């Protein structure tokens, strides 16, 4: 078996992984850093983020404001010490990216421009037209070329973590192109594998977002945190799930039901104003907007389409000029994928799964409870997102905690001795498993696509925008059944070369683990908070549930849940208010 040695291993080449790689190289250029990614890094899903990245730079805006917006947006489930670190370091990280060449949009005086964003009290969202994630990722990727100590394993798929003597020693990975399976060892490993939107049927997430890192950590005994909090984005295009960025609303788009009525006013989200007002109506937080949609469906005030009920986003009033200069990508997406021109027509939208607040349990340096293992980015839960992430907080999160984890992992690696011999035999076992379970097996009865679509149905029906004991229990049972049936999967493809079906199978097994973690955590939390809304327990219950949910994988495949305290520093829990009741400055968005 081939084996390669590095000091720090980054699993994932998205925003978090690349930022961490640079941090490792800058901490100590003599350390060998390796980025392992199942797609070429610049194809990672960070590329599709549109709206922007939040960081305080304008006079009048304060770190405390940003912290407060984040914490109240997260329904007080955020760790406030983490949030304070985050808001302080976010502007520095965004500036660093500027120094690396990121083409941030500018004001006429040459300064970086900022825009308003949902749930943010002041304008603090940096953007690069409406392709922020794309520019951020390509800038980071091209910048990594500079660092000679960064090696890349492009199109390598990590199938398992190597753990020995109580610490992580590397991973087993499969090179897609050749089918080679080998151990890549390292003294520290950082998981940066992104989210898990593909567990649900209807999502803005790319096909690669299958929660691999969460499952890898979970299987290695590391707890996942707050997995019940899954964010819906209120405005996705039906069928494709393509996201229409929040910016469309902060520029002044209206959400209307089938009667042309701005229905958000019926759901405690403020009163309609002609110009957008921060934290009011269409600029309320995502969870509340998505929940309002479900209520509209129940009232029969939505429009039916072949892809289910929709409401409409009205941009027509903004006019051609604003749309073309401020929202060109939105127009391009509508034209190219739905054949709709937002200058003249209404855009059909519905809530779609967008972001995973939960993830691998880490501290403020990205360290997990398992020695040598770190996590950063969407895969991790620090937690700064609490029960609901604010739009444009995720990109800076990748940068801030990617950099912190990279630095911490580098420093730790310098103290560590080389990997133990035993990991080689572990890697051989894994190779054998892959061959026996998939590559050489014939005659199984199940198709991956069938299991996938049944999982999708179970997740959407059981753990959607609104959940309850019965729906969740049904989903849990179904997932258990699917995990049984997964053993009967057999592949059409037994080739070693670029076997995408094998990949789909591995991802499917990861998704079943992640799906179960979501459902089990949701069963445990018998209250409603942020993105987790239980119809059987509609109120927030701070006495019993102002706490994180940690879920562990037992060796027999069952799970156990344990609460962990939330860190409160300066902002005691209060009610989340949006719209005119909130003491918001009535500044128009622009």
């Amino acid at each position, binding site marked *: 078996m081939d084996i390669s040695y590095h000091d720090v291993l980054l699993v994932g080449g998205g925003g978090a992984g690349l930022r961490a790689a640079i941090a490792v190289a800058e901490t100590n250029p003599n350390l060998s850093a390796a980025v392992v990614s199942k797609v070429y890094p610049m194809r990672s899903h960070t590329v599709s983020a549109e709206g922007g990245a939040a960081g305080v730079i304008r006079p009048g805006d304060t770190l405390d404001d940003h912290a407060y917006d984040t914490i109240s947006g997260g329904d007080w489930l955020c760790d406030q010490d983490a949030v304070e670190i985050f808001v302080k370091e976010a502007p520095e990280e965004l500036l660093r990216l500027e120094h690396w060449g990121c083409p941030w949009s500018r004001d006429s005086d040459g300064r970086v421009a900022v825009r308003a964003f949902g749930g943010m009290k002041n304008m603090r969202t940096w953007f690069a037209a409406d392709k922020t994630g794309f520019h951020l990722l390509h800038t980071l990727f091209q910048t990594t070329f500079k660092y000679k100590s960064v090696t890349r394993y492009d199109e390598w798929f990590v199938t398992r973590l190597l753990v020995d003597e109580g610490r992580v020693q590397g991973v087993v990975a499969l*090179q897609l*192109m*050749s089918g*080679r399976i080998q151990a890549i060892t390292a003294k520290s490993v950082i998981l940066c594998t992104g989210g898990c939107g593909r567990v649900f049927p209807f999502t803005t997430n790319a096909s690669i977002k299958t929660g691999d890192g969460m499952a890898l950590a979970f299987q290695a005994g590391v707890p996942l945190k707050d997995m019940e909090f899954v964010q819906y984005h209120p405005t996705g295009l039906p069928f494709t799930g393509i996201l229409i960025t929040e910016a469309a609303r902060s520029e002044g788009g209206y959400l209307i039901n089938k009667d042309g009525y701005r229905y958000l006013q019926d759901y405690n989200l403020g009163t309609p104003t002609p110009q957008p007002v921060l934290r009011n109506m269409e600029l309320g937080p995502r969870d509340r907007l998505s929940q309002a949609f479900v209520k509209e469906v129940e009232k029969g005030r939505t429009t039916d389409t072949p892809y289910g009920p929709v409401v409409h986003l009205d941009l027509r009033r903004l006019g051609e000029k604003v749309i073309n200069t401020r929202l060109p990508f939105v127009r391009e997406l509508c034209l190219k994928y739905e054949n709709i021109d937002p200058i003249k027509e209404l855009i059909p939208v519905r809530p779609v799964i967008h972001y995973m607040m939960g993830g691998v349990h880490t501290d403020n340096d990205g360290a997990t409870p398992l020695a040598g293992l770190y996590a950063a980015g969407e895969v991790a839960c620090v937690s700064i997102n609490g029960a609901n992430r604010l739009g444009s907080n995720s990109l800076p999160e990748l940068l801030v905690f990617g950099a912190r984890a990279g630095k911490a992992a580098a420093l730790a690696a310098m103290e560590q001795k080389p990997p133990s011999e035993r990991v080689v035999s572990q890697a051989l076992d894994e190779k054998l498993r892959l061959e026996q379970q998939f590559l050489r097996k014939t005659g199984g009865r199940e198709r991956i696509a069938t299991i996938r679509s049944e999982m999708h149905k179970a997740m959407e029906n059981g753990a959607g925008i609104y959940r309850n004991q019965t729906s969740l229990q049904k989903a849990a049972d179904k997932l258990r059944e699917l995990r049984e049936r997964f053993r009967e999967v057999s592949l059409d493809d037994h080739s070693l*070369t670029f076997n995408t079906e094998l990949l789909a199978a591995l991802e499917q097994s990861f998704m079943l683990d992640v799906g179960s973690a979501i459902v089990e955590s949701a069963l445990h939390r018998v209250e409603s908070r942020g993105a987790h809304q239980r119809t059987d327990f509609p109120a927030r219950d701070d006495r019993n549930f102002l706490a994180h949910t940690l879920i562990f994988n037992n060796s027999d495949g069952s799970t156990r849940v344990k609460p962990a305290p939330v860190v409160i520093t300066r902002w005691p829990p209060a009610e989340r208010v949006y719209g005119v009741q909130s003491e918001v400055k009535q500044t128009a968005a622009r």
Partner: protein
Amino acid sequence: MTETRQPARYTEYHPRWYRSRVSTWWWLAQWPYLKFILREISSVFVAWFVVVLLLQIRALSRGSEAYAAFERWLQNPLIVLLNMITLFFVVFHAVTWFNVAPRAMAIRFRGKRVPDFWIVGANYAAWAAVSLVLAWFLVRS
């Protein structure tokens, strides 16, 4: 820096790539490709034009007798044909270049990019003007 001078590099370990052969007639598949090949071929004619020019200078330096002989040679129908083809290619190059000009020179005026049409137009206008002046000289002499 010669990093790119090596042939294309690919990853080891793979059993076998498939490399499609480029057909001998690939350049007939699309008009832009045909134009590309024509431009490549045109180098022969451009070279020919240089030869003619050199011959002309040589004839000039050897006196009026030699020049008259050179002029007679030029009237040979074969040479005329060759020169006509050459003229065609030179014009073809000029047109190509004029059309490329706006892409090569992103000229800005008051912060906005000058529309392609104007740059192309200016080139043609300059060409016409120079041709007129030349024609005027020829007619006059």
